[in-house]
């Protein structure tokens, strides 16, 4: 037993006495995908013609070490399937019949199957290969693409040892191509082999384990795909048949090195992150001679785009990239390369009038995707290994820059929270001072009640802190909805029998506003709990918070005994209410209305855009 599933030994093909394929030697292993890449006229099609006997051929074709004659039927019986550029199907028969002709290849019992049974087998097969055409459709009614898909499915469903594909990507859509590629990969995973003959070297690069380069009827080189993935220029040179010793690369190298130095300089200077990214984008574009460069920042938690910097060498270059699609792409690879020749290239753009090539390099912070550097070319650009190394260096630099900025951001946050703590402590001392003064003035005050009040107010300030600490992004924005729920939670137990009804929308305010609003809500709810239900078993407190026109509206009402007649908040000597009044009118530049409406009803309106006069 040979270890090779299929071998071409000194295989030659002649067309009109002219040798179109010479000394073709290729050994295909089990579970291997070999791509034969060549330009038009390099002799690709003669391989097939020679194998099936359409053109006279010499040499040996071995299947598992056994020689085969050059004949289509012999190949098929030996589990070798060939799919040509234009699939061979019987036009006048249905899909089912076409397919079954082959599926039943080795099943002589075909004629005993019922139509219902065959249909079921076919539908199962279609389902397995994601093909969606009614099985009874006549082949002649199909589009070329559908025919090709049918041919692929027919070939792979036979589970042959070797599938030979000739220019499979022609005339089919991206979806079909992807489907085909997944068929090929599945085939490989089952230990079977594929020969993929194409002039689309990009496809070859994506799918093949090894790439054989066919040039003027001869295999000039067989490269492993890993070898060329990082340097496709090498592959192209080989395909075209030139072996350039690129002298111009010296100049380019210097420029790249200069550019890296420059980038390091940026990083150690005190630029803002945004400026830094703009500079990096410009620098990268210049160094790689790209027409545009874009650096996208990705949120590590949610993998969504946060921000991007873009540099275009010329303002007239028209394109808008589609980051969502580019993001989907990012997998394990270091580099992603696409050109307009690739199927589905346009999906990376929301608008594209100029771009022909796109290179993406992702970058990581602590092994989590943090961003992508994309460079764009107006022409079919071929990247070199140096360029990729450079892009990767820039990617690392960028990751560092972002990391740095985050650290700086943290220290700003730390300072900020220090300030908040001090201010909160001052607020608490202020409260105590006010109570102290109030006790001095009127000795009939209930000291226990005051201390409870104080405790409750301290808790409401801390409620805001809790919410702040929970924000993972370190923002100082508070959702009043969450805050009010928090406050109500610790007040609900202070008096039994009272039900809270909350009608809260998501209303966002800055931290400082939130903590003052917390005090206001706390005071008003405390008042209700303390005075509204004296002598009653049960009651209800309703808190509403929502946007109303340009304002934030907070309404707190109860169904208790209400305010005494002729109550005026300005003349009230209640300390709590005077604090509330001052905060709402002076600090928040809002209005407060206090009235009776089957109980106490307090409406506070705060301008939303300018929640404080002082901002």
């Amino acid at each position, binding site marked *: 037993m040979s270890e090779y599933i299929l071998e071409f030994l000194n295989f030659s093909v002649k067309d009109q006495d002219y040798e179109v394929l010479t000394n073709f030697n290729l050994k295909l292993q089990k579970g291997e995908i070999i791509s034969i890449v060549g330009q038009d006229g390099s002799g690709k099609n003669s391989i097939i013609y020679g194998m099936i006997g359409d053109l006279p051929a010499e040499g040996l074709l071995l299947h598992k070490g056994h020689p085969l004659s050059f004949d289509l039927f012999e190949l098929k019986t030996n589990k070798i399937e060939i799919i040509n550029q234009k699939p061979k199907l019987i036009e006048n028969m249905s899909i089912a019949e076409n397919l079954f002709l082959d599926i039943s290849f080795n099943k002589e019992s075909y004629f005993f199957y019922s139509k219902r049974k065959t249909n079921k087998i076919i539908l199962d097969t279609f389902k397995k290969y994601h093909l969606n055409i009614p099985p009874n459709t006549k082949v002649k009614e199909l589009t070329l693409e559908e025919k090709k898909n049918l041919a692929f499915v027919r070939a792979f469903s036979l589970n042959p040892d070797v599938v030979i594909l000739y220019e499979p990507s022609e005339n089919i859509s991206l979806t079909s191509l992807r489907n085909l590629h997944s068929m090929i990969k599945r085939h490989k995973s089952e230990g079977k082999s594929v020969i993929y003959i194409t002039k689309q070297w990009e496809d070859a690069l994506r799918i093949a384990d090894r790439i054989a380069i066919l040039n003027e009827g001869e295999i000039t080189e067989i490269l492993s795909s890993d070898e060329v993935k990082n340097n496709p220029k090498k592959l192209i040179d080989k395909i075209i048949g030139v072996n350039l010793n690129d002298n111009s690369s010296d100049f380019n190298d210097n420029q790249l090195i200069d550019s890296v130095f420059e980038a390091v300089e940026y990083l150690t200077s005190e630029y803002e992150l945004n400026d830094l990214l703009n500079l990096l984008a410009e620098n990268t574009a210049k160094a790689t001679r790209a027409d545009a460069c874009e650096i996208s920042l990705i949120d590590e938690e949610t993998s969504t785009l946060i921000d991007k910097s873009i540099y275009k060498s010329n303002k007239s270059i028209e394109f808008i990239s589609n980051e969502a699609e580019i993001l989907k792409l990012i997998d394990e690879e270091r580099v992603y390369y696409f050109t307009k020749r690739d199927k589905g290239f346009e999906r990376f753009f929301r608008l594209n009038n100029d771009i022909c090539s796109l290179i993406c390099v992702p970058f990581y912070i602590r092994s989590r995707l943090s961003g992508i550097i994309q460079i764009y070319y107006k022409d079919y650009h071929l990247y070199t290994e140096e360029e990729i190394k450079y892009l990767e260096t820039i990617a690392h630099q960028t990751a560092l820059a972002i990391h740095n900025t985050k650290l700086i951001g943290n220290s700003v946050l730390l*300072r900020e929270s*220090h*300030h908040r703590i*001090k*201010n909160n*402590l*001052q*607020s*608490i*001392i*202020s*409260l*105590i*001072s*006010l109570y*102290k*003064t109030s006790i*001095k003035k009127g000795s009939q005050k209930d000291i226990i009640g005051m201390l409870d009040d104080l405790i409750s107010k301290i808790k409401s300030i801390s409620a805001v802190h809790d919410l702040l600490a929970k924000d993972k992004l370190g923002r100082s924005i508070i959702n009043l909805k969450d805050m009010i729920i928090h406050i109500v939670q610790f007040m609900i137990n202070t008096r039994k029998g009272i039900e809270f009804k909350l009608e809260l929308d998501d209303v966002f305010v800055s931290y*400082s506003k939130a903590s*003052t609003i917390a*005090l206001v809500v706390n005071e008003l709810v405390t008042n209700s709990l303390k005075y509204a239900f004296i002598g009653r078993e049960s009651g209800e407190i309703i808190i509403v918070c929502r946007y109303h026109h340009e304002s934030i509206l907070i309404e707190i009402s109860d169904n208790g005994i209400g305010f005494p007649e002729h109550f005026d908040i300005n003349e009230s000597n209640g300390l709590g209410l005077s*604090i509330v009044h*001052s*905060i709402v009118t*002076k*600090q928040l530049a809002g209005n407060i209305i206090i009235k009776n409406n089957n109980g106490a009803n307090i409406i506070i309106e705060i301008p939303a855009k300018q929640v*404080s*006069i*002082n*901002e």
Partner: protein
Amino acid sequence: MKNLKVVVAEDEILILMGLKSNLESLGCIVIGEATNGKELIDIVLEKKPDLIIADINLPILDGLEALDIINQKMNIPSLIVSGYDDEELIQRASEIGVLGYLIKPIDESDLKAAIEIAISKFEEINKLKKELEETKDALESRKIIEKAKGIVMERLQLKEDDAMKFLQKKSRNSNKKLVDVAKDIIEADKAFRLD
């Protein structure tokens, strides 16, 4: 500290109310409350208090900026209140002429001590300033008199002692200050000089 007229600036109303209560309990009279830097300037210029207490973190204009502007227009002692003891801020405050730097949280006793020190420092500074002014004036007069004496010596061909006696006599006779007599002589000398 009794009846000291104070203007307080603080953007958080609750803290402002607390400070006011502390100050009143110390016997001060709070004659103005500001919640931003601009308001602070307006109130101070209008009410001319004996003392300003301002938070450093004020909107529109921060406390230090506002005090800087005020200090250029009038001489009022001031205290700054801040959440943190930042070297740079303290430096700035002292350059502006702030007399005390209070770090939150503060209570009545902190305020009392700071106000006492600020007021006494302020008085001391004022005293020194006055003395300095007087010394400067004296020095200036001496210079003028010396110059006039020189003119007299030259014109009347007198010795230094006699020239001085001449000036003193003229001062007594005309019932003018010696320095004014000297100024007259310098003026007259200018008028009669041909060159």
